[in-house]
């Protein structure tokens, strides 16, 4: 039997396979170079880039929970200028499309980021983070209402020709409404879910474990929530969905594809096993071969209900 076709088309990008890192869990790619072939990935997604350098939240920033991870990093990154000067040269020589995740405190900052990234050599698309639960300004403030989300995406749409992926939060009353809002505003794809807001308590010290008090929950613990969000959104919008939330194995990835995700992002798994994405890609291929499926697109959205 011939090797199954793994390519997917997403927001005008051709991905050699549907597997990419989730923003924030893969740094700027170089940290993982010794562990897996970056050129074997479907796409590279950067950590959130902000206009100015962002110091991030006070430690502790991570707390382990049952089959989960709470984090309150707070978007620590060196800012756009340093990103363009020090991170892009490495990223642009890679084969997979580079998706730059952007986060702003204000609508104007998102617009400025998008404007300055438009036309930068090697940037294939923008993922607009409107769902970070760990910053006081911006982030989730834009992603929690369909109107605000749409207004932001519309503003970004006006200043860039790059494909726009809106990254959505599960911390909303109706994720479908937000997805429809950003679709109408010109988003080319949506990615979901970002982390779920949560906290952990240190009984001995009678204090929150995290320096930021609350954080975002990820890992296997959130997978059922993520699957349901992806399934609901994929049925209701025309634009493709990048599914994520607790994907640790090829089996998890296949479940998201069945639920309607055109591609999947692997997050927390990278922090546990730096080879996770390579193993997931190999596992997807093995599954397709075993089940005589010639093209991965045949299983996307093929969930029978």
């Amino acid at each position: 039997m011939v090797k199954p076709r793994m390519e997917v088309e997403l927001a005008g990008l051709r991905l050699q396979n549907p597997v990419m890192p989730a923003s924030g869990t893969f740094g700027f790619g170089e940290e993982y170079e010794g562990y897996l072939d970056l050129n074997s990935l479907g796409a590279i997604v950067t950590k959130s880039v902000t206009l100015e350098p962002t110091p991030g939240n006070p430690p502790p920033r991570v707390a382990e929970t049952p089959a989960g991870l709470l984090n309150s990093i707070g978007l620590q990154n060196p800012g756009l200028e340093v990103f363009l000067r020090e991170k892009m040269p490495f990223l642009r020589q890679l084969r997979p499309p580079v998706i730059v995740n952007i986060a702003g405190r204000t609508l104007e900052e998102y617009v400025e980021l998008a404007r300055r990234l438009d036309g930068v050599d090697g940037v294939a698309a923008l993922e607009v983070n409107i769902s970070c639960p760990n910053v006081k300004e911006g982030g989730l403030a834009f992603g929690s209402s369909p109107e605000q989300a749409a207004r932001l995406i519309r503003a970004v749409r006006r200043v860039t020709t790059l494909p726009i992926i809106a990254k959505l939060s599960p911390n909303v009353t109706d994720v479908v409404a937000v997805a429809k809002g950003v679709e109408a505003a010109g988003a080319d794809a949506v990615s979901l879910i970002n982390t779920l807001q949560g906290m952990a308590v240190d009984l001995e010290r009678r204090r929150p474990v995290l320096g930021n008090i609350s954080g975002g929950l990820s890992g296997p613990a959130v997978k059922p929530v993520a699957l349901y969000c992806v399934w609901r959104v994929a049925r209701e919008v025309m634009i493709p969905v990048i599914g994520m939330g607790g994907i640790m194995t090829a089996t998890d990835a296949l479940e998201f594809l069945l639920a309607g995700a055109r591609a999947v992002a692997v997050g927390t798994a990278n922090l546990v096993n730096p080879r996770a994405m390579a193993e997931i890609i190999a596992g997807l291929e093995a599954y397709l071969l075993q089940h005589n499926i010639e093209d991965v697109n045949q299983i996307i959205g093929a969930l029978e209900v």
Partner: protein
Amino acid sequence: MSSLWQGEVVANTAVGPDIYHLRLRTALPGPRPGQFVHLRCGSSWDPLLRRPLSIHDYNPARQELELLYQVVGRGTAWLAGRRPGDFLDGLGPLGRGFTLPPGPRVALVAGGLGIAPLFFLARVAAAGGYQVTLYVGARSRDGLLRLETLQGLAVEVQRATDDGSAGFAGPVTSLLARHLEYKQYDGIFACGPRAMLAEVAKLAGQRGIPAEVSLEERMACGLGACRGCVVALYGEDGSIAYENVCSAGPVFPAEKIVW
């Protein structure tokens, strides 16, 4: 280049209250004192994260890695249940280790489990011709770990216990402070509770002795990617920034840390 490996458990024995000495067979590329390995502590996704453990010693001829750890939660409890012949999933060596000074006289200061990386440093420094004084402190005598093995090293061992059950009665930093009144050191290296490290940093700073400390922080990836394990450090210009304990540390110059 760091690596992922499967290490076979050779021995995993209790050496103190909830403290275990683990020996693993694995080929590591030249680990240095102060570096750590990142171990999976479970065969499912719960517990989820790896546990960072300081390298206690490494024998390249036998390809044997030694670790010293305390059972503090579910991950280390699982680890304590591993038996010879079991395999463990490891990552490393990771991080930046200790840097020995040009001068020959070094003081190593260990509080409790802080002996874990300092044992390796003591052995390497002694083998490299350094005059090593190792200060070990604990609450009580049974918390002075691996004493018999320490006595096999060509180092001067100074003991301190809070309850006076062995050696100097009081904090190990008080013992160090007394010795600093008349002893000269070209470098101080410390690992232990944060308050102890801050005290060592103060003592070293007052006398202008270069000091390095090994820090612990809740950690996720271990590779510098997630920025989960940061510590606040002073920059060259006096500004404060968060740096990764996993990749910029875990060993830092004591004067750079915002205590």
